[in-house]
């Protein structure tokens, strides 16, 4: 396994009176796609938001590229090379696709200053982005909005992309499109931490996997090993689910 680009050591997060993360220990190897699995409410999204500084870790360390980023402002994290695709996609519905992309390209003051090759690459992966370039993003379908959310994360070179449930509510054809896009993204040596509930989706993409339950990591290892081990799947995901039903 590669050395970790991102490492969480004993991270606790409180949201108001609620204690959500109870000492998360997680390693995200450099250049690989790590899947973060777990049932609803296990703390996956909170983990991503805590990494991004949208909710502050009350204890523990978040090491990114050899620096502790636990106390850094979100904007500084983006500047240091982290992009985030939230579960709700965070699309600016009143802005066009073009304007959404321009915002994500922080260095560009106008569309002309966006890296044309990179834009071509994104259009190749998601032709709908080109087709609806001047359309209000709020009018896009759910799948197209997800494509836009992922495209925004890809518009600039990133060291790490955090993606929260990209397959949620999408048609199988769109999911296949997403899988192809993430495979392309992996080839650019971008490290990806992807939260997912769809095990089939996770199985096709993940290099490594971490499983969360009750605000803790209860398993981590190679995705291939988990994919082949039915008993382990049942124990980690099935039992975990059953315990909370």
């Amino acid at each position, binding site marked *: 396994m590669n050395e970790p680009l991102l490492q969480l050591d004993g991270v606790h997060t409180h949201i108001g009176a609620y204690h959500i993360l109870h000492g998360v220990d997680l390693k995200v190897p450099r250049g690989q796609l790590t899947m973060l699995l777990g049932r609803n409410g296990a703390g996956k999204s909170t983990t991503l938001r805590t990494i991004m500084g949208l909710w502050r870790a009350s204890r523990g360390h978040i090491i990114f590229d050899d620096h502790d980023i636990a106390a850094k402002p*979100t904007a500084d994290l983006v500047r240091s090379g982290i992009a985030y695709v939230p579960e709700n996609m965070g699309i600016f519905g*009143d802005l066009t696709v073009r304007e959404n992309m321009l915002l994500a390209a922080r260095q560009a003051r106008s569309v002309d200053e966006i890296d044309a090759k990179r834009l071509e690459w994104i259009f190749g992966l998601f032709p709908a982005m080109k087709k609806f370039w001047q359309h209000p993003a709020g009018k896009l379908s759910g799948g197209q909005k997800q494509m836009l959310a992922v495209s925004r994360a890809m518009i600039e070179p990133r060291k790490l992309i955090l993606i929260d449930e990209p397959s949620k509510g999408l048609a199988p054809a769109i999911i296949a499109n997403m899988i192809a896009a993430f495979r392309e993204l992996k*080839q650019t040596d971008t490290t990806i931490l992807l939260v997912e509930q769809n095990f089939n989706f996770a199985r096709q993409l993940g290099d490594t996997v971490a499983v969360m339950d009750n605000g803790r990591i209860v398993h981590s290892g190679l995705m291939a090993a988990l994919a082949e081990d039915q008993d382990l799947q049942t124990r980690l995901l099935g039992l975990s689910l059953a315990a909370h039903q």
Partner: protein
Amino acid sequence: MSARVSTNAPEPAQAMISAKRRIDWLPLLLAPLLMLIAYPLIGSSSTWITLTVAGLAMGMIIFIIASGLTLIFGLMDVFTFANGIFIALGAFVAVSVLGALPQWTGADSLGLNLAALGVAVLAAMLAAGLAGLVFERLLIRRVYGQHLKQILITMGGMVVGEELIKMVWGTQQMELPLPATLSGSLVWGDVAIEKYRLLALLVGLSVFVCVIVVLNRTKVGLLIRAGVQDREMVESLGYRIQRLFIGVFAVGSALAGLGGVMWGLYQQNVTPQMGAQVNVLIFMVIIMGGLGSTSGSFLGAILIGLVANYTGFLMPKVALFSNILLMVAILLWRPQGLYSISSR
């Protein structure tokens, strides 16, 4: 990045398809419709023109005052009554500046008169902008996301601000006379139009064009529009939304200061309470326009100006509550305002 993907792109990135954003024309038709309806009721063309220009000028001044608060409301989600202080402060600074330049304001030269006004406006905007900056740092930043506390703390702040203004300029109403060449009216046949109202029209239109250009043609404007919809996502894209907040609050306060000068010259007097009195009108404009929508505020302000002048002539008693009736009618038609920001 793989070469295969690059060649996959069907056409060059620059060959974009045409714009598909639709303009919502219906609210734009309201003001012309109102003018058309008023014309036969008023009966006289000259009176109609005079009232219409007066209404548009009043609307422009209200828009100037409301434009800053529209941005503050829309982007920062801050319910502030403090704009009243910045309006009054701007007006009083103009009283002092214009009072110190009697040779310029009294001269029979449009250039000198406009120069005096320009200096007064700059000083008023600077003072109001700085006051806004201090206000944001001292009070507003402690209550982001807490509407009840925002209302209480900004009302308290407004009371303190009014008292500070009284300490500097006294408690009495002060005159703010128009410079020599801007007093009086231009007369064409039976039509008489006050010169200052034409100036107010020009200034209001200029402010509207500037705000629209900044919002729609610059990256800062794009950030503000995005921030109105989803502040957290703007932050997640790597921008310091807090700095944007402070900047918008200062600019919004400066615009209120400009509005104070325009309103003071319109009334030709200023009082420490003038801001609080105008606040109600501003809130109506912002609610009618749709929270955070500059175009909506512009249309709302014009409608309020026109309705106030038409009903003042046709039914003076109704004029007392005509603005409320207008707001109720618009909100019954569009509960989110003329142009709603859909993602809020």
